[in-house]
């Protein structure tokens, strides 16, 4: 291997860096008025090996790219905490108390239509999953809670959810307040 011309290596490096298209060795050589840039390309490939950037050839075209093992840096995820909407938490409660349930059953119990997005949110949160289809007319999809649901709400099992009598004792079935809450929540959350 011939000793690479340091200036040519620099020029090839800069040319490839600034180009908005992958370039062939011939295109680079023509652009720089050089006889050949093969050696320079090889030198650059070794120089960048193991760095955060690599020089790669794809079908004769050369370009710089982010090292493959660092691709995850290009697309990062950031989590924003968000509270569930009233509609979503009602749907979740119904699924938890009645699972497995179909969407139609959830709507029947809630007394209002459930937007498609509502169940998606619960599945995105990892608290609800599709538990198959109910045998019967239309074979509707049925939903159930997940282990992550129990973990998030600090429940050992679904049997830990308070029963109706306990809800009443806790005043959670007081019809006036409940009706008022439902009215106002229904407006703002859906």
């Amino acid at each position, binding site marked *: 291997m011939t000793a690479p011309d340091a200036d040519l290596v620099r020029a090839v490096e800069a040319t490839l860096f600034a180009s908005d298209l992958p370039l062939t060795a011939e295109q680079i050589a023509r652009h720089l008025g050089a006889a050949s840039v093969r050696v320079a390309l090889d030198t650059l490939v070794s120089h960048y090996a193991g760095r955060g950037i690599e020089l790669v050839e794809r079908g004769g075209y050369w370009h710089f790219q982010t090292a493959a093992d660092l691709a995850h840096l290009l697309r990062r*995820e950031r989590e*924003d905490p968000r509270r*569930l909407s009233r509609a979503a*938490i009602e749907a979740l*409660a119904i699924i938890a108390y009645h699972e497995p349930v179909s969407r139609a059953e959830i709507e029947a119990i809630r007394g209002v239509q459930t937007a498609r997005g509502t169940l998606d949110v619960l599945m995105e949160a990892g608290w609800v999953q599709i538990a198959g289809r109910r045998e019967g007319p239309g074979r509707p999809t049925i939903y159930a809670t997940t282990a992550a649901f129990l973990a998030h709400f600090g429940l050992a099992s679904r049997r830990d959810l308070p029963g109706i009598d306990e*809800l009443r004792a806790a005043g*959670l079935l007081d019809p006036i307040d*409940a009706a008022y809450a439902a009215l106002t929540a229904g407006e703002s959350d859906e």
Partner: protein
Amino acid sequence: MSEDNLTLYGAQDADWLPLASAPGNDDALYLELDGWEGPLDLLLDLARRQKVDLRTISILDLVDQYLGYVNRAQALRLELAADYLVMAAWLAYLKSLLLLPRDPEMQPSPEELALRLQLRLQRLGAMREAASRLMARDRLGRDVLPRGMPEGIRIDRKSRWTANLYDLIQAYGTIKARNVPVVHMVRERPVVTLEAALERVARLLGVALDWVDLRDFLPRAEPGTDPRLTRSALASSFAAALELAKQGRAEIAQDHVFGPLRLRAAAVAS
């Protein structure tokens, strides 16, 4: 300011619009009237032709050159913008002050005016030079280039949903409460039905000879009668009167709004 700096601001960058040509070439000078950004710029250009440091420049020479320039331009019937003429007048005045015997009382002194003009020229010269040097730098996108195909970095925002057990249970309680069957019950009220009122008004109208106040058709209210029954009777009787009028069996009259409503049997067509 050093000689070096002077030559630097003379250096023309590609971004400069053409400046006035070299000294001596007066015809070219006059043709480049649009080349100056105002009288101060012209003065600075003339000053630069003196080829000395702006601090040691002769203001009198400069004034002469400027006035000479303006005169020639006018002789050539070139249109000079008003601010060039204003500057010419001011410079002529300054020149006379500088040449005449001093008036010690005069404020500001002609020397101060001249010095201030010189300071202004120095400042403009400094900025012209600085602009030149700035434009001559290695500029991003022209001399130095950023990466041509950046992959771009993106941050996907993901929602981490939160809810607590109380919210969940409370929501369920709300649904349950909402679904408790609701029975509406209307308590029985003392009413006079339309049928009863119709029968009564028709009967009484038959015996009346002239206009009768609608209220006289009402059943006599005994002490202790429920007032709601009275109101119901009035409403029913009114409806009954309208019905009889519609059927052509009664006439209704009211002299003024909210006045007593009077009723009489319609004249039997004969």
